[in-house]
């Protein structure tokens, strides 16, 4: 390439660039003029308009919180409602001397230390020009006194507000849950626009799980305010959309009966309808008053609740994990029948203990003198441990745990509450992953009587019992019966979840074998739950369980008298009734209650009676 053409190229490039730069410069000038035009439009043409908005203290957009949906039980009894309450609020930016104002207010109404502490706490978190509550639940006298003195306090207002109230107090708390003030963590999670006017949010239970439905959608008002920030008139209003009303599957009468049956004990009861999965009663005892939490719980009261050794805040029905003990025996027996390990009439000789081949460790039966020759029915009726030890050894852990899995052990039932525990269904695989160890034969043995690594929640036990009642059909437990959209009269029901594949036995008669054993454990002369058989007017199938909290040494006797209460065995009982057409399945656990037959079974009987005999009582 010659210097000449290269120079020509350069000239051409320079020319092109110059042209481009000039065009760009012109575009820049044009856009700058557009900006100036826009600014002139705002600052000269519309100056008056914006000046008004600014000078006379602006239009404010005020969010209007939606009314929270109500919660009912299945029969329409109100479980959670909204009550009007009055509270005193201060907009700190509009108060000349905050301390003087607080002192003066303290002379008119009673302000205690905790009101002031909370006020100062909230004040640091609030946005500017927002109202900070000073005192909630004002009395009539206080409202009157404030109204007279109102002129003295610019920036101080009495506001009416709807506050969540739980009319039943301590009842069904662990299912319903409660609402509380939105905290910093929740602030990250929620849609801030939609919660702009909302102060409370579901913290636990149904209130939390169905928060989205219960809350509704925020509305807003454009308000013209005067120089001191008081609203003069509403210019425009978009009404809020209230939350949905929720109907629970709970039957509050049954819930009450169940809570009464467990009175004074720590423990849990879960009762459900096997065919639909509807949870009829959901009890965790002891309980507490959710109304304490709604407007910020007093710190001392909260400490007391938290440090209570009986742990009232702990949701045992949902999160309590217990060794299921003998309550899982019917399922283990079913596994053995299905796998052909043993026939229903085949007998095992129980001499009070069992030893693994080639070992001398004695695995004891609860009955030290032995049950003698025992068949499957006897084994369930008398809860003979040795029968299960023998059978389990032949069956093996793999067959046992894979058979139990569809009964929903070791995984959440999917009930509509947050924080459900999954329990533990031990298996070779589980132990390798959880403990990094291999499996021992001895573990298979104790696994067969629901001890060892086994853990299950009361909800899981109720569900597995419901599956037996249904003879394999699985409808998971749930608390939501239906919901009603705002303004609608009709309740939109929720369909039961029929998506789970049923458990199909090779020989369906095996269901009858174990159910017969469960029935005779109550009505049989030697049944472990025979004490609840008096005056039974319906058929029941059940199974007792007693789970060890404390392991005994090889030759030690379990002596309740000598042991501290915390080391007493847990008492369990699962049952369903009537056998022909199961209407209710129930799981009861009484912590440190002692024997399943003596303590837990009578509790379950009261629940079954309350539900099944109610119609008869009503008729009388």
């Amino acid at each position, binding site marked *: 390439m010659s210097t000449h053409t290269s120079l020509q*190229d350069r000239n051409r490039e320079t020319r092109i660039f110059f042209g*481009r730069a000039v065009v*760009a410069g012109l575009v820049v000038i044009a*856009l700058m003029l557009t900006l*100036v035009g826009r*600014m002139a439009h*705002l*600052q000269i043409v519309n100056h008056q308009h914006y000046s008004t908005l*600014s000078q006379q203290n602006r239009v404010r957009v005020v969010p209007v919180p939606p009314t929270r949906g109500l919660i009912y039980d299945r029969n329409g009894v109100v479980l959670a409602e909204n009550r009007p309450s009055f509270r005193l609020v201060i907009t700190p930016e509009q108060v000349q001397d905050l301390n003087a104002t607080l002192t003066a207010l303290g002379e008119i109404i009673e302000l205690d230390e905790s009101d002031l502490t909370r006020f100062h706490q909230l004040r640091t978190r609030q946005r500017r020009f927002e109202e900070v509550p000073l005192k909630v639940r004002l009395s009539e006298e206080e409202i009157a006194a404030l109204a007279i003195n109102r002129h003295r306090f610019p920036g101080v207002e009495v506001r009416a507000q709807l506050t969540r109230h739980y009319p039943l107090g301590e009842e069904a708390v662990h299912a319903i849950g409660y609402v509380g003030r939105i905290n910093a963590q929740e602030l990250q999670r929620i849609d801030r626009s939609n919660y702009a006017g909302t102060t409370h949010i579901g913290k636990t239970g149904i209130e939390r799980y169905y928060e989205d439905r219960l809350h509704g959608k925020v509305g807003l008002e454009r308000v013209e305010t005067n120089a001191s920030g008081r609203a003069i008139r509403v210019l425009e209003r978009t009404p809020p959309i209230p939350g949905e009303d929720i109907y629970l599957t709970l039957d509050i009468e049954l819930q009450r009966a169940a809570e009464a049956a467990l009175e004074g004990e720590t423990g849990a009861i879960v009762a459900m309808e096997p065919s639909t999965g509807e949870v009829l009663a959901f009890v965790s005892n002891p309980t507490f008053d959710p109304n304490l939490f709604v407007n910020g719980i007093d710190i001392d009261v909260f400490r007391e609740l938290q440090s209570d050794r009986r742990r009232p805040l702990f949701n045992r029905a949902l999160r309590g994990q217990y060794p299921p003990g003998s309550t899982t025996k019917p399922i283990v027996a079913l596994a053995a029948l299905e796998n052909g390990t043993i026939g229903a009439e085949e007998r095992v000789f129980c001499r009070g203990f069992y030893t693994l081949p080639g070992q001398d460790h004695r695995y004891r039966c609860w009955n030290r003198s032995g049950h003698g020759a025992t068949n499957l029915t006897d084994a369930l009726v008398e809860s003979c441990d040795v029968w299960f030890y023998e059978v389990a050894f032949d069956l093996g852990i793999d067959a046992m745990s894979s058979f139990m899995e569809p009964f929903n052990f070791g995984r959440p039932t999917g009930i509509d509450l947050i924080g459900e525990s999954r329990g533990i269904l031990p298996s070779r695989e589980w132990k390798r992953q959880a403990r990094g160890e291999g499996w021992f034969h001895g573990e298979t043995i104790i696994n067969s009587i629901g001890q060892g690594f086994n853990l299950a929640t009361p909800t899981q036990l109720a569900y597995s019992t419901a599956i037996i009642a249904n003879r394999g059909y699985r409808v998971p437990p749930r608390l939501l019966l239906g919901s009603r959209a705002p303004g609608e009269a009709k309740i939109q029901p929720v369909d039961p979840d029929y998506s789970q594949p049923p458990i199909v036995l090779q020989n369906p008669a095996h269901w009858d074998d174990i159910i017969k054993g469960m029935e005779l454990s109550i009505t049989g002369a030697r049944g472990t739950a025979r004490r609840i058989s008096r005056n039974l007017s319906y058929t029941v199938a059940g199974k007792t369980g007693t789970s060890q909290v404390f392991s005994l040494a090889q030759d030690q006797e379990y002596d309740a008298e000598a042991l501290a209460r915390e080391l007493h065995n847990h008492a369990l009982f699962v049952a369903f009734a009537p056998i022909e057409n199961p209407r209710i399945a129930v799981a009861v656990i009484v912590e440190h209650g002692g024997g399943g037959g003596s303590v837990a079974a009578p509790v379950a009987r009261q629940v079954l009676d309350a539900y099944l005999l109610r119609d008869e009582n009503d008729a009388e």
Partner: protein
Amino acid sequence: MLSRGPSNTTFLKQTWIQRNLHLDETLLGPLLILALAGLAVLYSAFDQNIDAINRQIIRLGIAFGVMLVLAQIPPTTLRRWAPWLFAVSVATLVAVLFIGVEGKGAKRWLDFGVFRFQPSEVMKIALPMMVAWYLSRYPLPPNWKQIAISLFIVLVPTALIIRQPDLGTSLLVAASGLFVLYLAGLRLRYMIGAAIAIVGSAPLLWYFGMHDYQRQRVLTFLNPERDPLGAGYHIIQSKIALGSGGTYGKGWLNGTQSHLEFLPERHTDFVFAVLGEEFGLFGVILLLLLYAFIIGRGLFIAVNAQDSFSRLLAGSLSLTFFVYIFVNAGMVSGLLPVVGLPLPLISYGGTSMVTLMAAFGILMSIHTHRRMWSS
């Protein structure tokens, strides 16, 4: 032919400062005035908090220091470095995706313990350098193959920055690259074709390529007043601030919108509204004139540069500077959607200021390292 014979010095008149410090007074003067004006506005926006102003002065010092350093590096050196700087910048952008530090919902920083480093900022300079380096190797205007490769060079860092996500910066980075293409003489018909393609594909994307919630987001983005409690709140308040300022403003330190804290982000992205409220249209026009002068000087430097690389780079940096101003002022006045970009040299904060001043350092270097032509 180039020579530096002393006999030719008369061809190129340079002042003492240009020759020895490699600074351009004509650019430096307005920049200093801007910085001082910015401090005054911030002093008001911060409710006369002198600590914040001191911090800003330190940042300004650092930024001007960076400018001084870059002005010493001859454009030939910058040109040699361009591909390497670009490669390193892309690598750090990729690193941000994996080991970046989160802040305000976006992953933008690499944490080196003592300080945090934001690779997307470097890209604002590295990308135009790269495209300018690439295109200046061939005769201009570029052919379609060179255009395609340039577009690819632009696309990679832009996509990486959108992923962080940082819409404002990705917009600037993409613009800085595309400006180089435009200045290199990209044919008009290509530009019209691209515009038609974008406008034409938008409805398709809208109806077939988006979920309903995404459409809602776009609508709120385009018209924030749809959401008066969220995104729209800023715009409503900043329009009130500007509009109530009127012709001459409410006076320094007297803006009610800003001092009663109605105006959010008043130290950073919305500082323009504070200026508009307190100094009125008069102040706004003065500020825009200053900016226009700086952009004009930048284009003048570009036109007078002696090689393609310098020309393209200087032109792109000047036009990118304008994008800052237009997007920020357009956003604050409700003309454009809300995109988080600071107002150059006025907004509080250091990172983007350093990059900006680095760009001005490059402009000064280009202008003061010119050589003499002999005939």
